[in-house]
């Protein structure tokens, strides 16, 4: 059973980078204050080393990604953004921008996944093999950047670039744009936002009920001396 190695270095780097970003973003959640350069390096180094440890004919990153699938380029861009955010290198999105971006990913997932699982007759996934779709995605990317959704625009453009460079095993653009975890995360964020809004609108204002100002208002009051 001889065989040439067809696992390209680019794909190996891509899958390890995905693993490193995933674990590093989890570790960064534990950091409450702006971390030092040493702790940032440690945060990246620990998953990088763990990822290459051998386990069951593969390595840890291959084992994990074998179970959860390859991450999309968009997911990796968001993980990088989340890391930079937790290290206080970038500013957070506005609530509206964050909601709209999640709405975009959720809508894309709704177009793709139910149809791919056979719930609709038309299979949207097959369009991802055509170059026409890549051009359309580039147009959407430009539109997103013009509308100030820079991260979304960059994610989409990078997805097309990675697809053209064949950085993943897949030859379908959809797999570079979105993965089920991104879709599920977007859905959770949206549902949580709706629940929060519903919950806060149903809760009586504590200040009105008890005849005192809400804490936010109280904090702005001048201190009595």
């Amino acid at each position, binding site marked *: 059973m001889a065989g040439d*190695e067809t696992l390209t270095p680019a794909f190996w780097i891509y899958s390890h980078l995905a693993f490193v970003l995933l674990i590093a973003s989890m570790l960064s959640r534990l950091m409450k204050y702006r971390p030092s350069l040493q702790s940032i390096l440690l945060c990246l180094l620990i998953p990088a080393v763990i990822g290459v440890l051998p386990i069951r004919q593969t390595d840890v990153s291959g084992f994990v990604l*074998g179970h959860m*699938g390859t991450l999309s380029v968009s997911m990796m861009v968001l993980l990088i953004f989340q890391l930079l955010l937790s290290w206080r290198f970038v500013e957070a999105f506005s609530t509206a921008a964050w909601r709209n971006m999640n709405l975009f990913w959720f809508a894309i997932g709704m177009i*793709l996944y139910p149809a791919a699982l056979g719930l609709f*007759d038309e*299979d949207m996934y097959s369009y991802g093999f055509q170059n026409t779709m*890549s051009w359309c995605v*580039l147009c959407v990317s430009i539109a997103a950047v013009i509308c100030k959704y820079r991260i979304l625009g960059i994610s989409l453009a990078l997805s097309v670039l990675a697809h053209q460079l064949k950085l993943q095993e897949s030859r379908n653009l959809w797999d570079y744009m979105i993965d089920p975890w991104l879709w599920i995360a977007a859905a959770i964020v949206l549902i949580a936002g709706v629940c929060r809004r519903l919950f806060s609108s149903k809760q009586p204002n504590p200040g009105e009920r008890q005849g005192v100002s809400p804490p936010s208002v109280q904090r702005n009051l001048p201190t009595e001396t």
Partner: protein
Amino acid sequence: MKRDLLSLAYCCVLASSAGLLLTASRPPQDLKFAESKLPAVEVAQNGGDPTLRFIQPAGGPPAVHSGTITRLHDGRMLAAWFAGTREGASDVRILMASLAPGASEWSEPTAIATREQTSKDLNRYIAKLGNPILFADSRQRIWLFYVTVSMGGWSGSSITLRHSDDDGVTWTAAQRLVTSPFLNVSTLVKGCPIECETGHLLLPVYHEFIRKFGEALVINPDGDLVSKIRLTAERGAIQPWIVPINRHASEAFYRQSGHHQKLVLTNRLSNVFDSECASIEFTNIPNPDAAIAVIRRDNGEFLMACSPMESGRHKLSLATSKDGLEWKVIRDIEVGDPPDEFSYPYLIQAARGEYHLVYTWSRTRMRYVTFDEQWLETKP
């Protein structure tokens, strides 16, 4: 400053993407099935009863299943199947054996894919493997497609391929085909690929997770998946066999799974590459949710290996049809009693008027039978 840099980086990415897209090779346009170039029969047809042979000697792995067969340019037949302590066990391997022209015994089986080697090649954990398909194309390249599962049952399968350019002596490293956006799960393979004029392969596959339906993959000569076609949205129409009728049109036949009417299903594909697929029709041949194999005879009739019963797999027969809807059983290959099982047939025509069939024999051995056109014509 930060924003300027970001804008510059974005413009670079955009320009690179557009540049690569402009120079990228286009997906295949107007694919057509290759003309059949079957060699003439080397041995005179005698119409005598075919000999049933076991492919591998007794005392091998206790569980075998899912046989496949192909003919090499030198006339040798190659067969492959999966074998291990039980279906889905971690020790299951894909075994291959060959039969030289005129020989009566198959060679000793050798492993052409294992879980360990596949895991290493794909850099991901593989829990089990199964369902091999062997196919020798007109360039004398042998393709091996098989399914791998990282977690869960068979509905968590994805398709892996290897190929050999030296008649199966050495094989390339395993390569995973990404066929579904949902964690790439639930694409399985059973039917025989069809070669196109351009060297592309049309590989019939099926989906099992949440809903079961038939699909086809277009694979370029380098082994890259370049297109995917949904053959039908009909529930339970799985394990398609696509039979070309001319350069564009074909007929697909399906095993029915979980349907109330236990019949083989079919639909006409006026141009499968343009997803022109008609709705499913029921044939008159019973099907106990068991695999089938269909090819086209020289006289234009369809020939199907199947278990023509509503339940059980203790009978394996050959049936013919002129239109794909009305079938007539013409020969029985195996007839037993429950719990005997003669299942998972794989039928090919290797030369004009020469047919080769492999199937699972009670899940313990692989059986092989070859017959000719004359035997089919002779009344039993």
